[in-house]
Every structure is written in C-alpha cells, then in structure tokens.
C-alpha cells in the first residue's frame, strides 16, 4: 500500500509493506548500488564487460519476476483461513527432521535458485532476511 498524505500543505509518502515486499525492495536497492541506480527504473544493469552485463540482466529478470511471485504468494495466502493457517503452522512446527521440513526445503530451493541466478542477489537477500530476524537458511 502506497499513499500520499498532505499534512499542513506538505506531502508525506506513507508505505505499508509486508516483510517479503520489504525484503525485495531493500535487496533491489542494494543491487542498484552495485549494478547501477538505473535498474530501479527498468534500465539494464551496468557491469565490467558485456558478459557480466548479460549475466546480470538475466539475473535481474528472475529477480523482477520474483516480485510478481511475492504478490501472487501473498494473494494466495490471503485465501487461507486463519484456522488453516494455524494447522499449517503446527505441521511445520511438528516437523523435526530436515527431510520433513517442506517450508525449509522450499526456502533452501529458493536460495539455490537465486544463487544460480546471481550471487549478489542471494547475498543481499540473505542480509535482508538476517536483518529482519529470520532464520538463516543453510545451503543444501
């Protein structure tokens, strides 16, 4: 949610972000510092040579697609009733061995996928998750 309040004639932007939206946006900011501020405006990334620029462009495409995935996932989660959500959370809690941790496996798979797409994205995302106090996902 993104609104503009006008207080005493002065505009103030108010953003309300979910944790995932925040992690995505902050990671994008961190990437922009390394790959060029223009990526925030849809421009291609910078790089030391054409090969690196091409590699980053591919990774950036995946990263932008992740934004849509986050929006999709959050909409889907809205469809889960509070009761169902509690049951899902309980199932996750009851899982004691790594092989029975679907959520952890999914996160590890996501991290691996991001590693494949671009190490910088993965590092930035992990830093964001750590900053937010999330559990570190160990590489598989």
């Amino acid at each position: 949610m993104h609104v503009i309040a006008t207080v005493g004639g002065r505009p103030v932007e108010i953003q309300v972000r979910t944790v995932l939206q925040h992690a995505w946006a902050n990671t994008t900011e961190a990437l922009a510092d390394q790959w060029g501020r223009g990526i925030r405006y849809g421009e291609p990334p910078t790089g030391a040579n054409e090969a690196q620029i091409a590699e980053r462009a591919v990774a950036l495409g995946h990263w932008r697609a992740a934004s849509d995935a986050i929006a999709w996932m959050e909409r889907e989660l809205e469809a889960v009733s509070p009761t169902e959500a509690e049951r899902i959370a309980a199932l996750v809690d009851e899982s004691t061995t790594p092989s029975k941790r679907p959520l952890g496996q999914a996160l590890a798979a996501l991290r691996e996928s991001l590693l494949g797409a671009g190490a910088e994205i993965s590092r930035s995302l992990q830093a964001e998750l750590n900053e937010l106090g999330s559990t570190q996902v160990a590489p598989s």
Partner: protein
Amino acid sequence: MADRFSKTAIDRLGRKLAETTSPDAADTELLLAYLRQASSALDHTLMVVARVVSSLPAGAHVLHVTHRVKTIGTIIEKLRRGTGRLSQMQDVVGVRVVGSLGLAPRTSCRRSLQTASRARTWTIAENDPATDTVPCT
C-alpha cells in the same frame, strides 16, 4: 519579499539542481531549508500512523515504523531522470510501516488513514502505482 518556497522558486531550484553536477552553496542551502520545512510534517504524520498501527486487527504484527527525509543525492538523481518537478515530488518525506500484514490489516490501515484524512490538516491520495518499486495489492 517573494516566498522562497513558492512553487515557482522550488521548481526553479529543481531545474538548476538537475542541470548541474555540483550544486552551489546557495542552492544547497535553499534545498536544505526546503527539506527542513517539509520534514515539519513528520511529527504529525508519525502520531497518526502510530495511532493507526496500534488499532490494527488481531493477527497483524508490525515489525517497525521508520521515517526518512530524501537525501540531496537521491533528489538530484530523480530530478535528472525528469520524472517531475521538485515542488511535485511527493516522497521527499516518507514514513514506512513494515510487518506481517495481510490484506485485511492493510485495508484496515488504509481506512484508518482515510478517516484521519477528514481532519482539515490531513488529506490523503493514492500514489501512482507505476512509481512504486514494491508489489502493490
């Protein structure tokens, strides 16, 4: 004496900032004064946002509320991209709420902010979603 923060004066400043690689001392001072004035809206905004956040429905967990005034560098960056005039830049001052907020709490938050907008000093409008860098629902 002309208002140093009139739209004309601020837009003139914005054009100068966009065209120069190194703003002179007078322009920098004027921009800083403009930012100080703009940031005077923060106290009231934070008070309203805190009230809204404290009345969110059960299940909503707010991790943090932060605020910031845009830096000179990012203002110049935005002006150079030609995305608008300085007097129309709406994110010079911003407040951000981050949390585990589903659609219902976010809708509640929006309604509460709209209710607050009925106060004469506070009006609210949707921003252009195209300028947003995060997924919006």
